[in-house]
């Protein structure tokens, strides 16, 4: 017994020492892997935890990018072609873990980082990136707050949070006939959702809607009945959910249970996620969603071709339709590749400068960052679930079908 206890203690001590060794700070240079013919980029990904679903979609986007880039021989750095190798670590959907993983990548000499899923994780990572002189391309952190802190080394390929729900309001104002008059926003209480909710309320006010008081519930809530119950008496024409998938599904399910029937539901992140239709079935019909990207997006590039080709590639590789979570991740990876090629170096400072100056077309959108690192000129799209499929209805220029109005049935 005594021997086994000593053995166990010794094993724990040995493992601890080994782990401490792994975690020690190094002063590695910024071009990890370059000498071995590979270009290593670090990615902390939410593979488990509350945003695991979105995290997996993000990883798929990164994986397709790696495949496409390597199929073309890799990343051209000066006169060398380096194979792209993205290293993944699971951040369990937790911001503090995502931030410490960025630190770990730095310890391994990996200075180029692809963002985790979501604004909270990305915001935590951005601070570490700045401190370590790393560079990050953010694929899914849309909260304007990330870019309001004066950081110089984080670049987001996506439209800012304030545009998410506002785009749905704009679409309804432009397309719905007869035009609805009242709007209420139901929002999760995380930074991203609140920012999106504020954007929607402001847009609605500017467009002449009667805007009811925004109702908040905890981020990740699966019971939003109290908020629905509160707005039921006012009978709003449009209910906008500034939410993630779990809360978005709960709004539709519980509104049905409580008999809350507006003319349309619109939600930010949930409807473009494939699980939205599979979990809600026919109750998903008519719901509007804002999307960073749709299959009808204009633009193309040498690696992914057009948006339609991108969708076909995702379908072939992952057996589901391409969602914007996939596309924004691939676009972030593409931005890195183009910037590294333009810089002709994997040095973090040079890549940072190249990203700041990047202005390139892609299947996703024009990749161009403003002074704070946001891709602020990129437009959002609005989709509607029609016949179980996501169909682009706004902006009119890229619409695949007309808006079905009203989007609900009594």
């Amino acid at each position: 017994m005594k021997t086994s206890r000593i053995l166990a203690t010794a094993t724990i001590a040995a493992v601890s020492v080994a782990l401490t060794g792994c975690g020690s700070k190094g002063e590695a240079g910024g071009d990890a892997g370059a000498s071995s013919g590979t270009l290593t980029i670090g990615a902390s990904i939410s593979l488990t935890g509350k945003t695991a679903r979105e995290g997996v979609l993000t990883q798929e986007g990164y994986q397709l990018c790696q495949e496409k880039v390597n199929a073309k021989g890799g990343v051209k750095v000066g006169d060398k072609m380096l194979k792209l190798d993205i290293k993944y670590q699971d951040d369990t959907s937790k911001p503090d873990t995502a931030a410490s993983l960025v630190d770990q990548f730095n310890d391994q000499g990996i200075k180029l980082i692809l963002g985790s899923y979501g604004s909270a994780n990305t915001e935590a990572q951005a601070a570490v990136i700045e401190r370590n002189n790393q560079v990050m391309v953010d694929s899914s952190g849309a909260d304007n707050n990330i870019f309001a802190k004066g950081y110089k080394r984080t670049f987001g390929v996506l439209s800012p949070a304030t545009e998410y729900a506002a785009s749905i309001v704009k679409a309804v104002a432009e397309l719905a006939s007869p035009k609805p008059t009242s709007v209420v926003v139901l929002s999760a209480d995380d930074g991203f959702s609140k920012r999106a909710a504020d954007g929607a309320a402001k847009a609605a006010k500017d467009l002449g809607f009667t805007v009811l008081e925004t109702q908040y519930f905890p981020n990740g809530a699966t019971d939003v009945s109290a908020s629905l119950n509160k707005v039921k008496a006012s009978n709003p024409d449009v209910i906008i959910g500034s939410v993630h998938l779990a809360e978005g599904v709960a709004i539709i399910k519980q509104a049905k249970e409580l008999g809350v029937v507006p003319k349309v539901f619109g939600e930010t992140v949930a409807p473009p996620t494939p699980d939205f239709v599979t979990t809600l079935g026919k109750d998903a019909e008519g719901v509007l969603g804002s999307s960073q990207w749709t299959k009808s997006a204009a633009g193309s590039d040498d690696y992914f071709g057009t948006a339609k080709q991108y969708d076909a590639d995702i379908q072939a590789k992952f057996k589901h339709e391409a969602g914007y979570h996939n596309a924004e991740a691939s676009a972030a990876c593409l931005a890195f590749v183009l910037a590294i090629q333009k810089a002709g170096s994997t040095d973090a400072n040079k890549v940072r400068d190249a990203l700041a100056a990047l202005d390139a077309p892609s299947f996703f959108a024009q990749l161009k960052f403003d002074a704070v690192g946001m891709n602020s000129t990129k437009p959002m799209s609005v989709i509607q679930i029609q016949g179980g499929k996501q169909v682009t209805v706004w902006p009119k220029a890229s619409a695949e079908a007309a808006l079905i109005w009203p989007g609900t049935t009594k």
Partner: protein
Amino acid sequence: MTGFLQATVYGLLQGGLLALVAVGFSLVWGVMNVVNLSHGAFVVLGAYVGWQLNTSLGLDPFLGMVIVALVLFCIGYAVQRFLINLVVNGPIFITLLLTFGLELLLVQGMNIVFTANYQSIPTSYAGNAIVLGGIQVPLGRLLAFLLAVGITVLLVKVMANTRIGMSIMATGMDRGAARLMGIRARHVYALTFGIATALAGMAGTMVGTVGTFNPAAAGGFTLLSFVIAVLGGLGNMYGAMVGGLLMGLVQAWGGYYLSGTWVNALAFLVLVIVLMFRPSGLVGKAFYAARVEV
């Protein structure tokens, strides 16, 4: 007024569902003095089994939950008999560690087998509602509530009137004395754990029918069960029901009258207040609460 009544009805129905989630947790804690941190994972596992039965065999979740209960009972019995039983005499930290590890294993296993995709068990009726005097009573939640009440009453009857129930209660009160009376504690413990996981599985199927689930939901169910068990109190089979209903009502009223972001803070505030005046929980017995050995 309609809004208040609607919030109350919904809160009560939600409370019944929460009670069903927590009743097994409370049972295991009360009888075995094990705070089972893997309880939430069994709830989600039950939801997945119910979902699988529905998608593969087209079985209605209310029928399927009988099979779910059987499957989860077997798993729970085996887990207790061959795993948790190894440390059941150890300090509470050891059982906490073991069940926490089990939770990680189960959640990760479900992530691998079922992926992290959100799922829901579709029915044609669960989302519909009966309208009574302007109040919507959702059918799925009503059925879940009735089931929760039924199961709690049945559990009370089984515990009070059957030989196996009395063996469970006796082992919970004094394992040594129970052994001297010829009760096989190991079997009773495994049986208790099996019943708890079966109930967790049934609750999971209900949750999957009226809402959505994925493996990441497990931790939330464990936390909720913990709060409800403490709120209701240990050693009384009605404890989880009382705790669950109070939790449901507090959340519904809190969300209706205050900001919805306050609901969790409010639920814990109620827990603190209850514990200040009734340290053994609302209907719990002091003997069970005082047994925690560190």
